[in-house]
């Protein structure tokens, strides 16, 4: 409750007014700065509830496992997420890290009968370093992994162990690894955890499959691809970024020349220094206006 003195001389009340305005401005700016940074970097502490391991702190990163469900059901699939939280201004890498860096890796130790599939990679960002280029995540990321529980599992609970390794970098790079075990009960009904929403958020950043009805490729000093998509997804786009999944195809540090109309996309990017032959399979992620992503694959 504001406390107003009954008697106050004019100059000091003006002073109070000015200082309270300045305070209000400062508070507003710090909120703005905070919300701008929480878009990417996490300022909320990591809370551990059922369905998550206690976060492990290593240089410039927090790491933990999170589960979509806090109660698993035999015969059903759930998702485990590797939650990587780099410190502000630090980053981790995508499946193809680009010119340098290392993608995060997971080795699972699972009870008999349980199985995992490949990491679902949310679409990445470009992380330029001088004239070189990396691909990765400039803030926290959850890497979801599908986990299948066999229908004949008779146990009351399962312990899932992940040995995760990563490289977290700003200017310098720090490799890390951690072994984390998540123990979850089994029941008749799946119960979603407090982490299901964030797993879903990152799962939604998985590029959607873009079927192609045709393609043309020419290799000179550039890799030139013309993609004919089955759907006219490029029409309204203002910016499309190309992220190759295969390594040694394009020179990451050279910008791709992209042009598009309706369902046709042209990509021209300098050939990689390490290019030796056309791969059997070319897969790429296309990020449209930073808001949605497609994944194409073609056999040249």
């Amino acid at each position, binding site marked *: 409750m504001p406390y107003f003195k009954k008697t106050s001389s004019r100059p000091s009340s003006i002073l109070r007014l000015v200082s309270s305005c300045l305070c209000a401005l400062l508070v507003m700016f710090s909120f703005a700065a905070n919300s701008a940074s929480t878009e990417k970097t996490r300022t909320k502490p990591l809370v551990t509830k059922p369905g998550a391991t206690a976060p492990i702190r290593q240089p410039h990163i927090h790491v933990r496992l999170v589960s979509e469900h806090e109660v698993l059901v035999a015969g059903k699939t759930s998702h485990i997420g590797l939650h990587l939280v780099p410190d502000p201004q630090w980053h981790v890498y995508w499946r193809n890290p680009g010119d*340098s860096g*290392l993608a995060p890796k997971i080795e699972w130790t699972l009870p008999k009968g349980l199985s995992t599939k490949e990491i679902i990679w949310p679409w990445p960002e470009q992380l330029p370093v001088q*004239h*070189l280029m990396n691909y990765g995540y400039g803030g926290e990321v959850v890497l979801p992994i599908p986990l299948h529980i066999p229908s004949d599992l008779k146990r009351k609970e399962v312990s899932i162990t992940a040995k995760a390794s990563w490289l977290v970098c700003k200017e*310098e790079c720090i*490799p890390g690894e951690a072994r984390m075990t998540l123990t979850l009960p089994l029941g008749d009904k799946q119960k979603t955890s407090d982490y299901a929403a964030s797993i879903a958020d990152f799962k939604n950043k998985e590029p959607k499959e873009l079927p192609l009805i045709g393609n043309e490729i020419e290799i000179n*000093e550039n890799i030139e691809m013309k993609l004919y998509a089955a759907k006219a997804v490029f029409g309204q786009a203002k910016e499309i970024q190309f992220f190759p999944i295969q*390594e040694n195809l394009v020179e990451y540090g050279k910008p791709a020349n992209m042009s598009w109309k309706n369902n046709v996309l042209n990509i021209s990017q300098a050939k990689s*220094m390490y290019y*030796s032959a056309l791969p059997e399979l070319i897969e790429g992620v296309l990020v449209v206006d930073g808001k949605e992503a497609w994944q194409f694959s073609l056999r040249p």
Partner: protein
Amino acid sequence: MKGIFSRLTFFLLFLMSVPLYAALGIDKAAPDFTASDSNGKTVSLKDFKGKKVVLEWTNDQCPFVKKHYDSGNMQALQKKYTQDGVVWLSVISSAKGKQGYVKGGEANDLTKSRNAAPNHVLIDSEGSIGRKYAAKTTPHMYIIDEKGVLKYMGAIDSIRSASPADIPKAVNYLDLGMKELTAGKALSKPVTKPYGCSVKY
């Protein structure tokens, strides 16, 4: 009119960027360079015609470089090949103020403290040798034959990690390339993707 102008600009920019990489290629003459070594001596690639040359991009703070130095792997390779008459040049392309940048005296201290055995440590703080060779990571290895032709560029070995435990499990591409080169064979792996920290230009 507008279209032609932007296309011309793009073409000119493209021309400017081409020389950086066009000169670099396997079985082509390795780009010549001149630099100061850690003792202030001027060193040029052409000084070493008639000998095989290994270029090793390095940054002593990088975990991937530490993997190969803390384990003694890099020093063992340096000793093995320099004893065989190969010229080993360690190159530091870190810009002033960036990780890995050292002055000559400090570079010599590091060579001593790590028991390393390069013939020269080249201080390339402007990054010009790095850019000529498109050095991307530390470590990043190159083999040049006696005629000055580039025969290998890429990773030091086949397991991309920062863990020294992976060294004995990996194929060492320097050893492989040198063996094939000495036997007069074409290299089975002339180019591999290097791994490591990015060079701190």
